[in-house]
């Protein structure tokens, strides 16, 4: 286990009680240079998780609260005419940060959503003809309320694909909830957190994650999973090659978090629900309610070669 990461996890677990898995998945997502979508009901600690990660990793942090009247310029920034210099000066928007929290991303109009998603994809933004690079590392963590709530614009599937993972927080268990209720306000603790790393270290870790070994046997397994989703009648569409790459990248990061230099089938299985559940659509209407069980059924359906 790499020490700075170990500290990051320890710190996060002290604040986000009873959610070690979600914390590790979020970290793995960042190590794999992916963007994260957290989906759950309001008040289960989505935003807190993001705050904790940004603070402990020592990243510049910006938060965009998505509303229905949010405009692309509110995200990207705007050029303002300076009367004293007679020039247009660009005022960068909140997107110009290492970690951007897009809170309740499904409340904004598709136009605003797509401005964010384009930035995620390209790692750069083009405003008024000028292309501006975004900082590195660059993460977008979007939170989303379940789509059946009123007044939301659910992200289209093509956009969902841009997120490496989608995770759900879920209610805390009884013990964790007791700790939460009896303890101090989480926000105060977050404010006092000390960064355990800096962005340069994080970039280096990302490079090391890329070098985690993947054996032919494991590739067989990943391909078997992809093939199964394409051949099975349980899903509307099989997983895309990009989904396969994402699955492998996330599994590498997960193995790295575990302190290993080779990916195991278990690593693939651990990240699989996060990576595939927003990319697979069940043909069975009843199964749509619980996308995690869909992923678990997929794991159980594919034998490890």
């Amino acid at each position, binding site marked *: 286990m790499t020490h700075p990461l170990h500290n990051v996890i320890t710190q996060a677990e002290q604040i986000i009680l009873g959610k070690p898995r979600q914390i590790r998945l979020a970290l793995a997502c960042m190590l794999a240079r992916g963007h994260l979508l957290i989906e759950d009901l309001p008040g289960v600690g989505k935003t807190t998780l993001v705050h904790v990660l940004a603070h402990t990793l020592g990243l510049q942090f910006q938060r965009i609260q998505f509303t229905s009247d949010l405009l692309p310029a509110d995200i990207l920034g705007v050029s303002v005419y300076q009367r004293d210099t007679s020039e247009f000066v660009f005022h960068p928007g909140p997107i110009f940060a290492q970690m951007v929290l897009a809170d309740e991303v499904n409340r904004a109009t598709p136009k605003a959503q797509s401005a964010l998603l384009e930035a995620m994809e390209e790692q750069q933004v083009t405003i008024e003809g000028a292309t501006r690079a975004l900082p590195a590392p660059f993460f977008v963590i979007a939170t989303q309320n379940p789509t059946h709530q009123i007044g939301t614009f659910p992200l289209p599937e093509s956009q969902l694909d841009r997120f490496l993972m989608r995770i759900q927080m879920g209610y805390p268990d009884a013990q964790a909830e007791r700790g939460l209720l009896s303890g101090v306000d989480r926000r105060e603790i977050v404010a006092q957190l000390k960064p355990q790393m800096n962005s340069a270290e994080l970039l280096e870790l990302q490079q090391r994650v890329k070098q985690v*070994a993947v*054996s032919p*046997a*494991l590739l067989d397994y990943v391909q078997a999973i992809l093939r199964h989703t394409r051949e099975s009648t349980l899903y509307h569409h099989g997983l895309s090659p990009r989904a396969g790459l994402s699955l492998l990248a996330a599994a590498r990061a997960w193995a790295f978090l575990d302190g290993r*230099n*080779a*990916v*195991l*089938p*278990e690593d693939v*299985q651990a990240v699989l629900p996060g990576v595939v559940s927003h990319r697979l659509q069940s043909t069975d209407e009843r199964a749509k309610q619980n996308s995690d069980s869909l992923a678990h059924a997929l*794991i*159980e*359906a*594919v*034998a*490890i070669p």
Partner: protein
Amino acid sequence: MTKSLIFGLLLAILMVIAPHADHLPLWVNALCAALLLWRAYLAASGNSLPARWLLTLVTLGSVGGILISFHTLFGREVGVTLLLLLTALKFMELRQPRDAMVMIYLACFIIITNFFYSQSIPTALYMLATLLVVVTAWVHLNAARVPLKPRLRIAGVLLLQAIPLTLVLFVLFPRVQGPLWGLPQDAYASSGLDDKMSPGSFSRLSLSDEVAFRVTYAEAPPRRDQMYWRGPVLWDFDGRTWTPGRTSIMSPPEFSDTANEVSYSVTLEPHNKTWLFLLDMPEKISDDARLSYDFQMTRKEPVKTRLRYEASSHLTYHANLRESERQLQRALQLPPQLNPKALELAARWRAESRNDDALINTALRHFNREGFRYTLEPPMLGVHSVDEFLFGTKQGFCEHYASSFVFLMRAAHIPARVVTGYQGGEYNDTGGYYIVRQSDAHAWAEVWLDKRGWVRIDPTAAIAPARVERGLAAAVPDNAAMPFMARNPPQWLRELRLNWDAVSNRWNQWVLGYNTELQFAFLTRLGMESVNWQTMALNMAAGLGLVIALFALVMLRHLFKRETDVTQAAWLKLCRKLAKAGLPRAPHEGPRDYAARIAAARPELAATLHDISERYIALRYGEHPDTVTQQAFLQRIRAVKV
């Protein structure tokens, strides 16, 4: 529906219909051709198919036409015609892949109907080629993107794969006694020996080179001039025609002093008559047949399928030494007031001869010396046919000589009768058997002599000995009209012909003639006990299942591919071992999860399993698997005791 698929189907249907053209009414041929051409034009031009009302009209019209042509809508002939017409019509509504499938099934069905009319080798080969075209169209329907050459290859492979199944079905399918559907028309061919003889009837027959029967001798064949295949015996003469006549005498024949037994088997082509051909004098026969008082072998049912029988005969014999008086009287009957000159001649001979033998010799010498000619084209004869022949034309074929000889004998008070049948035959050294053709048909005489019984006298031998010794071709002039096959063709042609006949003889005996008896014999020889249709059906199902299972195995072999990776094989072996101990690994369970689960269930195995699983992980998923780890891993797996 691509253009090329439609053309493929058109070709297939054309090929299956074409052999029928020979026996279909002309208007059906024309209509089928017109429909196929029309469809080809529509496919080529891309125009739309004709309207439904028009098709309905044409359909009703053709059904009406069939009613007018055949006066019925039932029966084999009509059924086939109807099927062909409707198939051609079906083309006009070929829209969906489903329709194309129907066309392919129809084509396969029509292939079978061709065997109603001919079952020869060329027909079978042609139908095989047709089947290839049909299957190719079928492959096209299901895999349109495959180009023509691989498509043909797939069809060929499919047909080859069907061969073992065909063989199993052919050998084991329970045979039905008698034809189920009726036999090819050629089975009812009635050209052949008749039980009547009048001037010209044999010379007509000699123009046919059709095979009458084939003979295989068990041992050395008899001399050629002993090969008299006995057919109908004719007693009554009305001055022109010889007929068997009627008699109430049913006493069995008596042979004495028999010798020179010869055994042989005959494969008789169907001739739609009840008599069988055996050498003089018949002794035994394998078929259910009866030897009549005048030594004819007859069965109850006419021979409508190719018949094979084993028989034996005695070449030396005394037949019916004690013939009944009534029979002898029958053998002396002559038509009244006919042929006065012949009667006179016979009376003179009678007066001049010391005994019957001398008289017979006088008669034969007369034929030999008085300018008689053996010819295939004898002149027409009038009312006094025997007189005109003996004293006028002096040109005749075997029936003329047999007829006039018997007439003269009767006139001279020697009981005599005409015997018809075949004489000689052609030896096929490829197949080792004799072919007897219609052109070998012959007529000779039998006279009854005291103390010697019925004796065969062949007057033809007195005029043309070559006919009896070497065959018809040797006995007639070279320019005589004769069947091609009865002549002496060039050597290579003769060999080709004999080889071909040998092949078709095999085909006849083993493929077409594979009936219940042959099947029984064959299966018994294969070692099958108690052959009945139940065991045959069971064996057939088992054989089919076996063949299909073999094919399935070959096709699914990749599913059974052996694990070649040593590490993985050892790991799977360990998993099986643990599974036997009640701790099976779920297929999706990774090595770590599995080791952890086993550790929880069986703490005493925890350390070993952890060690093994870590090594397994290093070997299978690690960056640099090394042989040292592998050796240790394999060793530890062997050491595991559950």
